[in-house]
């Protein structure tokens, strides 16, 4: 952590959190992409959650008299080769991406945060071995791990989430471990210890609470690649299985109609790209605002 923040922290133990809130407000004013990206992301999330509820169509409801329709009042984005409503399917796909992203990131936080926290707090041999393990995991390509696990568990959402969480936790563990290690030396933690605070109080109130922002940054940055990998696996047929309309499945199924009905492929493609782009902007904006170590990175 920065040296100039240390005296402040000694006076008021929770100063880092307050300073971070200020930094976030300033970042929102300075970074002109953060707010629009966050708004777009929010719209996509709300649409994915709400549309399947209010839509008059089920995602697998066929209507063979109305195939390949363009946008109409009844089907806002048109229909696919079986006359299914594209907007409804898109929203269901968004739900799946959302669930996969959130569940995977939560698993990452649980596994990586716990192991990283233990490694940083305990130190010594345990720390060394856990970090060796993360090194090993980081050296193994994520997509390959996902493919192998898909082979082992049989394709499906579970295999995707397990594979992505297994591939993602080491980075989370390293982040948390590094921060806990640095925080342990800070004056306000030393002061709390000297003042007779219990180990659990030091751990929860001072160490964990001051690491949460980094976990949030890491998680936001991770969701994009996670959703991307899920879409890739589903596109290849190794992820989410039909008839569940994941975005990868939507793109794969409309691929053969690219000549006659290009919108069918291009709309899900754009939705996926915009989502990933917005996630990247929000993640980098948050990182710049909350994590001083990445400031100035391109």
């Amino acid at each position: 952590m920065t040296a100039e923040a240390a005296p402040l922290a000694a006076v008021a133990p929770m100063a880092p959190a307050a300073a971070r809130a200020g930094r976030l407000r300033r970042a929102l004013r300075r970074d002109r992409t953060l707010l629009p990206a966050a708004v777009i992301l929010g719209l996509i999330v709300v649409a994915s959650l709400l549309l399947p509820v209010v839509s008059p169509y089920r995602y697998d409801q066929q209507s063979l008299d109305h195939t390949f329709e363009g946008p109409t009042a009844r089907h806002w984005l048109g229909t696919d080769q079986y006359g299914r409503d594209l907007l409804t399917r898109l929203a269901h796909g968004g739900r799946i991406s959302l669930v996969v992203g959130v569940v995977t990131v939560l698993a990452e936080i649980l596994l990586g945060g716990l192991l990283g926290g233990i490694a940083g707090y305990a130190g010594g041999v345990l720390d060394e071995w856990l970090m060796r393990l993360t090194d090993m995991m980081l050296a193994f390509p994520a997509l390959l791990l996902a493919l192998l696990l898909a082979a082992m568990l049989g394709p499906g959402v579970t295999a995707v989430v397990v594979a992505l969480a297994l591939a993602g936790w080491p980075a989370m563990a390293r982040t948390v471990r590094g921060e806990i290690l640095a925080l342990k030396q800070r004056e306000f933690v030393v002061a709390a210890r000297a003042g007779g605070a219990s180990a659990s109080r030091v751990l929860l109130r001072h160490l964990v609470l001051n690491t949460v922002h980094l976990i949030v940054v890491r998680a936001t940055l991770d969701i994009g690649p996670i959703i991307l990998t899920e879409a890739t696996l589903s596109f290849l047929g190794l992820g989410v299985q039909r008839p569940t309309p994941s975005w990868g499945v939507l793109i794969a199924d409309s691929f053969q109609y690219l000549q006659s009905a290009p919108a069918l492929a291009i709309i899900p493609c754009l939705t996926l790209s915009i989502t990933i782009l917005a996630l990247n902007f929000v993640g980098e904006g948050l990182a710049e605002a909350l994590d001083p170590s990445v400031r100035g990175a391109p």
Partner: protein
Amino acid sequence: MRFAVRRLGFTLAVLVASSVVVFVVGRLAPGDPVQLLLGDVRDPVTEARVRRELGLDRPLWAQYLRFAGRALRGDLGESYANPGRSVNRMVAEALPPTARLAGAAVGLALLLGVPLGILSAVRRAAATDVLARLVALGGMSLPSFVAAVLLIRWLALGWHVVPSSGWGDLRHYVLPVLVLLVQPLAYITRVTRAGVLRVLPEDYVRTAHGKGLPPWQVLSRHVLPNAAISVITIAGLAFSYALTGAFVVETIFRIPGLGQAAVGALFLRDYPMVQAVGLLYAAIFIGMNFLVDLGYALIDPRIRYR
């Protein structure tokens, strides 16, 4: 040097660990290999014989040692899906298209990304800088199959410039290489820009400016050589990215390469083939990571094994 030796030891340990993972995947995956090989034949005597021939009646660790020993000698067994064909042959046949595509993509990415990265670092906030950051962020955000869909739509189906799929002559390279190019280009542009930005404020660059060298000479003699190492090491990683991209690209464009072979093998539960491709990819990735680590240690003596 000590660092290199320790890093090499670690790399070998990771290789062994990944070979265990690849082996376990092949063993624990659903489906009995004996049944897969024999197909409809239901004869207990034959089944027992095949099981013994494959070594499947022995304990798991013995099976692993046998697998690892044969893998070290370069023998990965026989394909389940194509009985009588060795997996080695299948990999050897599928490798050239993948390697050529990845090589072409990374080569082009270096040719375009390095100048773009340098320009954007030297003249910050100019149009080139905006372009470079857009390429970097867009490349990271654009899924390869989305790029493929858009390119096929306009270049192949719209304007009929190039064929939309297949493999044969040079025209078949255009679309796959363009798709594979996106990620490495983003990556290389980003790293080049960061590398040059890291060197620019150094004292020796200021000195070179101070003694009156023209800007392009400062750049070519002092800045670029010092920024180059990171770019060269990153080219290795970009090659691994392109190899992973092969899974999607070869499936879309119907190219008979490693990626398509691996995806096909996964569907057919052809585990020897899956294991072979898994081992090959793991070895390439881990080897590249090793080289990148060594490269970083060369640039920055402060980086040491912790």
